[in-house]
């Protein structure tokens, strides 16, 4: 399965990203060269996860785990197989611990303890393409639980035009990705969220965002 995932990324995802899409990356040097780390990006398209994974060398592939909602990705057998084995998702329960008192982020914390690089979309779902919606606080809780792990804010733009929610037709567009300086968790959840939000707004303001109306 690991081999299949490697082949899929090397022969399908990377060539598609390179030819049909195109990434203008700012701040490549701020991407972590080893785990544990959390990449916290905004979410416009299914392509976001694949594009973020493809920013890393193939040898890091086994370490990179996109955190994804169990209810969406494990809803049918084919999607579940694909999401788990090819994309390599780390499924979490969005409804927040069915069991009383269970930590819904336990799986994430365990993965970070193993030295993995997690991909997290604090907006929750893809929402309206190319439009920042409110961030959920899970990221702040995770950062508080693992205060030594860097949380890297990443602003992405353009993939929502290429493949927005609800569409299956890919239209070639370049996308922009801006990587910011790492943040670290703190006790105050609201303060962490404010810092994260401010970083994301600053990263967005550095990019040329064409009107898409």
């Amino acid at each position, binding site marked *: 399965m690991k081999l299949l995932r490697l082949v899929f990324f090397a022969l399908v995802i990377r060539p598609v990203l390179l030819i049909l899409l*195109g990434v*203008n*990356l*700012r701040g490549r040097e701020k991407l972590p060269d080893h785990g544990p780390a959390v990449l916290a990006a905004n979410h416009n398209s299914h392509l976001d996860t694949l594009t973020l994974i493809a920013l890393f060398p193939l040898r890091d592939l086994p370490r990179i785990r996109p955190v994804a909602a169990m209810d969406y990705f494990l809803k049918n057998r084919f999607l579940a197989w694909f999401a788990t084995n090819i994309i390599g998702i780390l499924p979490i329960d969005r409804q927040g611990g069915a069991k009383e008192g269970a930590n819904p982020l336990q799986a994430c914390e365990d993965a970070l303890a193993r030295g993995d690089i997690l991909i997290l979309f604090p907006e929750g779902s893809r929402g309206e393409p190319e439009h920042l919606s409110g961030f959920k606080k899970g990221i702040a809780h995770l950062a508080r639980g693992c205060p030594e792990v860097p949380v890297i804010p990443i602003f992405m733009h*353009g993939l929502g*035009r290429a493949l*927005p929610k609800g*569409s299956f*037709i890919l*239209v*070639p*567009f*370049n*996308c922009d990705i801006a990587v910011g300086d790492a943040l670290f968790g703190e006790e105050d959840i609201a303060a962490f969220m404010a810092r994260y939000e401010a970083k994301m707004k600053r990263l967005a303001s550095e990019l*040329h965002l*064409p*009107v*898409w*109306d």
Partner: protein
Amino acid sequence: MSMFGELSTVHQVLIGIYALLLVASGIVAVLSRKGVSGADELVARVKSWWWMIGVFTVAILIGPAASVVFLGFLSFLALKEYFSLIPTRRIDREVLLWAYLAVPIQFYWVYSNWYGMFIVFIPVWMFLLLSMVITLRGETEGFLRAVGTYTWGLMITVFALSHLAGLMFLGREIGNPAGGAGLLLFLVFLTQFNDVAQFTWGKMFGRHAIVPKVSPKKTWEGFLGGLATTTLLAVFLGPFLTVMDPLWSAFAGAAIAAAGFIGDVTISALKRDLKVKDSSGLIPGHGGILDRVDSLTYAAPAFFHIIRYFYA
């Protein structure tokens, strides 16, 4: 026999270009070692030149089919960059696929050497088709902006640039001794050389801006200096790579320099309107594809039609 002759002239010029590149690499390496400010940018730029010239060399030496595929791909990248920069309407997402589809078709007309279709396909058929498809989306808000921007982009990035590939076949048709590759090499080398020459003359003597609001660093001194240098180089290269005698070569060289300048400032005007510095970050030290082929968007059709009008 003629095949051997064709390759050898083009080969000699290519060897000259690689020699220039070696010299440039040497100079940049020295600057970088001395720690001159801005040297890193130049290192990246020269390194990218190696890649661009390398790919271009392989494409034209393999033959016309490879050149068409390579130049078609270049055109596609330029169009994609353009669509990524400009304002687009959500409702037009699929409309843009029609525009992309025009790329392989246009380059197929080039490959099949069907001049009549090559010359009307985008200005007539795609122009009307795109306008129709946009109308049928049924949204009038922003209609004029959409038809205007999409068709202009298609003309500049696909129609104009497809003339580069057209040269490969035109050269064969008119019996150019150095073949189509000779014409293409003459145009591309002079255009890129002219960019550098105008930049250098402007840097040294530039005082009077030509269109200050569009491109404050483009001066009369740079333009005229570049034009003179390029014309002079054309006099030597023309008889070597093309059917033209020295006088016609001078005329073609001056036309390439002037058209190249216009292409350059036209793309600058576009970028300035969109408030971006580079069209993308694809080529380190250069910017995007559009930044690199800006001069060619005017120089290629101008040179192609000069040759076709006077020699075909």
